[in-house]
């Protein structure tokens, strides 16, 4: 049998396979280059970017929990100027598409970032993180309010012709309603899930372990929640969905595709196995070979309920 076709397409971005690296878990690609062949993965999604450099939260910022980890990094990043100057040159050296994840404090900031990134040829697409508080509107998180999400996505849409992926927060009552709002604002694709808000407590000191008190849960522990949300959203919208949450193996990734994902992102797994993304793509291919499936796209949404 010929090698199975693993390629997929997200809003015009051609991926050699469906495995991307999740924002915030893979730096700017460069950090992992020694451990993983970047030419063997679908896409690189870079650390969440803002207009100005962002300090992030006090420490401790991370804590392992059963089957997962909490993080409250606080979106520390170098800011767009340093990103363009210091991080983009490396991305130019790899043929794998780079997708830039970003966030803002106001609708205007999101639009300005999109406008600036629109001009950068190395940027294949944008992933907008809407799990951030809107400072102009009492700090309500954009991604928990359909109208706010709509306005952010609309503003970004008007600022760029590049593909726009909206990354959804799972910390909502109705994920489908959020997905509809983003699709209405002409997002090209949706990615989910971002981390689930959680906390960890130290009995000895009777204090929260994270300095920020709460943090975002990721890793294998969130996978069932992520699968459920991807399944609900993929049924409800026509645009492609990217599945994220606790993917550690090719099997995990394929389950997300059955649930309706066109592609997946690997996050926490990069920390324990820096070559996880490459390995997962290989494991997917192996499954297709063993099952006699010639094209991975056959599995998208093939779940039988």
């Amino acid at each position, binding site marked *: 049998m010929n090698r199975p076709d693993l390629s997929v397409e997200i809003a015009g971005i051609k991926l050699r396979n469906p495995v991307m690296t999740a924002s915030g878990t893979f*730096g700017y690609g460069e950090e992992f280059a020694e451990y993983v062949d970047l030419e063997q993965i679908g896409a690189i999604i870079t650390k969440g970017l803002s207009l100005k450099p962002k300090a992030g939260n006090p420490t401790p910022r991370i804590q392992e929990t059963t089957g997962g980890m909490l993080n409250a990094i606080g979106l520390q990043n170098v800011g767009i100027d340093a990103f363009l100057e210091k991080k983009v040159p490396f991305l130019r050296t790899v043929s794998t598409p780079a997708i830039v994840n970003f966030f803002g404090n106001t609708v205007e900031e999101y639009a300005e970032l999109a406008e600036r990134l629109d001009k950068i040829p190395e940027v294949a697409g944008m992933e907008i993180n809407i799990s951030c508080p809107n400072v102009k509107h009492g700090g309500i998180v954009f991604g928990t309010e359909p109208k706010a999400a709509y306005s952010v996505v609309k503003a970004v849409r008007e600022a760029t012709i590049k593909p726009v992926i909206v990354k959804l927060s799972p910390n909502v009552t109705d994920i489908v309603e959020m997905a509809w709002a983003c699709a209405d604002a002409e997002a090209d694709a949706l990615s989910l899930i971002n981390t689930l808000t959680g906390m960890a407590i130290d009995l000895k000191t009777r204090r929260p372990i994270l300095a920020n008190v709460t943090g975002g849960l990721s890793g294998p522990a969130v996978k069932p929640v992520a699968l459920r949300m991807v399944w609900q959203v993929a049924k409800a919208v026509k645009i492609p969905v990217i599945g994220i949450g606790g993917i550690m193996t090719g099997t995990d990734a394929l389950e997300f595709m059955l649930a309706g994902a066109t592609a997946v992102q690997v996050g926490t797994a990069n920390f324990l196995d820096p070559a996880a993304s490459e390995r997962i793509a290989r494991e997917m291919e192996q499954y297709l070979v063993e099952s006699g499936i010639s094209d991975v796209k056959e599995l998208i949404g093939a779940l039988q309920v």
Partner: protein
Amino acid sequence: MQFRATIISNQEVSPGYFRMRITAPPELAGAQPGQFVMVRVRDAIDPLLRRPFGIFDVGTVLSEYPGCSSATYLELLYKVVGKGTEALSTYHHGDHVDIIAPLGTGFDLGAPEEEKILVGGGIGIAPLYYLAKSLVERSRVRFFLGGRTRDDILCVTEFERLGVETYVATDDGTLGDRGLVTEVMERHIREDGRKKTIYACGPMPMLKAVAEIARQTGTHCQVSLEAYMACGMGACLGCVVKGKDHADETPDYRCVCKDGPVFAFDQLMWV
């Protein structure tokens, strides 16, 4: 680099403290003192994250048989504090662990003519042995070793065998001087005006005291820090500490895993 290591030995050297020798690729013999390794304790999701450990020693044993290749080893010295180190302590000769090494920025060996003062608190001596080994051929080295009680004082003979002058202090006086190791060190620093460099690793209160002595006496000082880590390669930003110029509007966070774990004391914010 990432490699699968075979455990050669794993011995309890004092109650709750283990010294583990594992195989390593030859390139690792070039590791800088003060660099560290990330150990995947089990090929499973619990414990989920890798655990960071200092390089206690690394070296190459020449084969006794002509024509046979020599073998590089890596040694870790660790204290059992939780589930990762607990699991490590159960491993025997022939078991395997997955390692990423060497990571981070290690100690600057400095000018040979300067005397080197090493200060270790408890398990904080881990990165100091390989450092002492690298320094002792070029410089005078004195080593100050502190702990709560005699069981926390490890590997004194190993240091002495290198030709390092070793001083011990315990909080309860069960070994060496009674009191804080930093006080013993301070007396030696002040006894003559010659230029010295201090290298310190241990709990935060000890490092703060060392940094204060270094500041007062105008002595060069490098400290090795610990932080909770997820990636070990500068990607997650979980391990940061505040650099000397840190302010809320102009953040100056340094990654312990990449910019450190060793820092010149005057590069950090100590408050």
